[in-house]
């Protein structure tokens, strides 16, 4: 029991640290679909957007079956309509075994790495390779260790080790090497140990429960485990999932002290990648590995320039290619790096390859529901009237602004020692913080008194 408590404690601690920080999409648990892929109105943190969620669910099923690879999906819609939420939902429902890599479009522009290198690293991070490790081990509880030292003090030691499981017990003759490593590990009667047959490596799993009362005083970190069941000589198989990028990194590292710290910041030679591809496909043919095409999510994809798009075009055709999901909030705009206009700022030939999912603005009821979910997530109690006011704000300004007001109003409320956020708290933060429309209004009125006011005549170029 003690051992179980000790092992379950570790993930608990992690959970707490995860809960402490609340992100913009931390309430998303999945896509909120039922078994027939029909979206439920409110489920797993998702609200509304039924058509796009259904479409995403269809794509999700295909990804899970591993049926589609090298395809691309575009999620397009106005700001604050849940594009990133849908992508997060897909990521959550894929589970831990399918690789999901998310990056923002502007992340690939760096001085250390070329754009295409950053993109290919992201591509390869999104492809998993499943491999299996197999070891023969001897696992048992130590009943007795007997080591005979020669009377002269020098010469070979001999010894006997008695191991048992719940089913059987046996004696091993020990050589000098084994005796050394046993005493190095401080193995004593009552310990549960494993011996790797191939390498002879001994590892201590803990102390057996039956021997828990051997000593009154024991170190705090003493782990208690059950006596192993079944046969002594077991075969252990462990399945690992690693990403192609991780294998690349290991193989591109130069041997040496600095190599440990270089990490994956540097560029990886294309020869290394080719070698890895060859090795992995060899493994696949021998039945040693399975390829898991994962998902690469690029947010704000209009920030990519024309070179990136042509690289993506090419990369999607490679046989080791993940499913690419992109999101953008732009309409018809200039493609970065050219003077041409195009829908979503994506070249037409790229658009032609995409399955496009559109998101639509939320209705009042949906806005209300989302605000409610966010309140629960941020641990803020909202009174009925305040909720209505906040919904109204969300409809008239933006959903993001309304969500921002939740935590700030929560703070104001706590300051006046209230338990529930009232309309006054909302009014107060509404007057303290400007939304985008009011801020622009203010700028228009007082632009003359700001510095560099002559620049405001030219449109901001964000494409």
């Amino acid at each position, binding site marked *: 029991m003690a051992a179980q408590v000790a092992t379950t404690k570790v993930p608990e601690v992690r959970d707490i640290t995860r809960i402490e920080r609340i992100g913009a999409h931390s309430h998303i648990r999945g896509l909120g679909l039922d078994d027939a892929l029909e979206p439920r109105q409110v489920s797993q943190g998702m609200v509304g957007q039924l058509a796009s969620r259904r479409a995403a669910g269809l794509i999700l099923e295909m990804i899970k079956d591993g049926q589609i690879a090298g395809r691309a999906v575009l999620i397009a819609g106005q700001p604050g309509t849940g594009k990133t939420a849908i992508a997060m939902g897909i990521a959550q429902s894929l589970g831990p075994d399918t690789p999901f890599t998310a990056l923002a479009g502007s992340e690939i522009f760096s001085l250390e790495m070329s754009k295409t290198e950053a993109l290919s690293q992201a591509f390869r991070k999104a492809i998993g390779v*499943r*491999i299996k*490790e197999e070891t023969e081990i001897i696992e048992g509880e130590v009943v007795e260790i007997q080591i005979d030292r020669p009377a002269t003090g020098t010469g070979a030691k001999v010894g006997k080790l008695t191991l048992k499981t719940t089913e059987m017990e046996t004696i091993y*003759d020990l050589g000098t090497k084994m005796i050394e490593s046993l005493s190095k590990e401080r193995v004593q009667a009552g310990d549960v140990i494993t011996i790797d047959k191939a390498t002879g490596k001994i590892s201590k799993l803990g102390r057996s429960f039956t021997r828990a009362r051997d000593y009154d005083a024991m170190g705090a970190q003493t782990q208690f485990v059950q006596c192993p069941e079944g*046969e*002594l000589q077991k075969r252990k198989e462990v*399945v690992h999932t690693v990403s192609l990028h991780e294998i690349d990194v*290991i193989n591109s590292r130069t041997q040496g002290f600095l190599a440990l710290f270089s990490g994956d910041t540097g560029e990886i030679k294309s020869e290394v990648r080719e070698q890895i591809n060859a090795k992995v496909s060899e493994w696949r043919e021998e039945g040693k590995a399975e390829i898991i095409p994962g998902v690469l999510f690029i947010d704000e994809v209009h920030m990519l320039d024309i070179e990136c798009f042509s690289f993506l075009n090419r990369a999607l055709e490679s046989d080791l290619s993940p499913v690419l999901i992109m999101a953008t909030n732009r309409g018809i705009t200039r493609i970065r790096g050219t003077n041409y206009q195009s829908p979503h700022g994506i070249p037409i030939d790229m658009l032609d390859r995409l399955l496009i999912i559109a998101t639509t603005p939320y209705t009042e009821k949906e806005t209300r529901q989302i605000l409610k979910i966010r309140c629960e997530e941020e641990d803020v109690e909202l009174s009925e009237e305040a909720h209505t006011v906040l919904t109204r704000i969300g409809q008239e300004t933006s959903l993001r602004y309304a969500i921002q007001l939740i935590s700030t109003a929560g703070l104001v409320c706590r300051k006046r020692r209230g338990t529930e956020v009232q309309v006054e708290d909302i009014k107060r933060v509404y007057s303290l913080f400007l939304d985008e429309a009011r801020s622009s209004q203010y700028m228009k009125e007082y632009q003359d008194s700001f510095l560099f006011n002559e620049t405001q005549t030219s449109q901001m170029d964000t494409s």
Partner: protein
Amino acid sequence: MDESAQRVLEHLTEVEVAAEDILTDKQQIVDLDVRRNRNREALSALRNNSPNDNVKVCFGNMFIKFPQESTRSMILKDQEQLDKEITDLRTRLKAKVNRLNELQGKPELRGYNLAPLSSDEVKAINSLLKK
């Protein structure tokens, strides 16, 4: 009993039979491993003996004096046979566990049917596996 109850019963029987089969195989592996370890103990006892004496070997409920060399080769042959049988049982066990999972409607275990990497390959990507 109406038809659907009959069908449920049939299905449950099928699951139980499959599960029982697995348990029997597991027990057999344990029994074989017991014999394997006993043989190993015998071999090491023979190694520590003076080489020219005859040894007493237990057959059923009877002890027979036997020359050491032939005893050793007999045990070694038995040992090989045991190793082979255990490996066979383990491979067959995989298919059986898969069938049971299928009957119970559980998802197939991932990467279950992969061939293991060779020790060289494992060593090469060890730093990834141990994280």
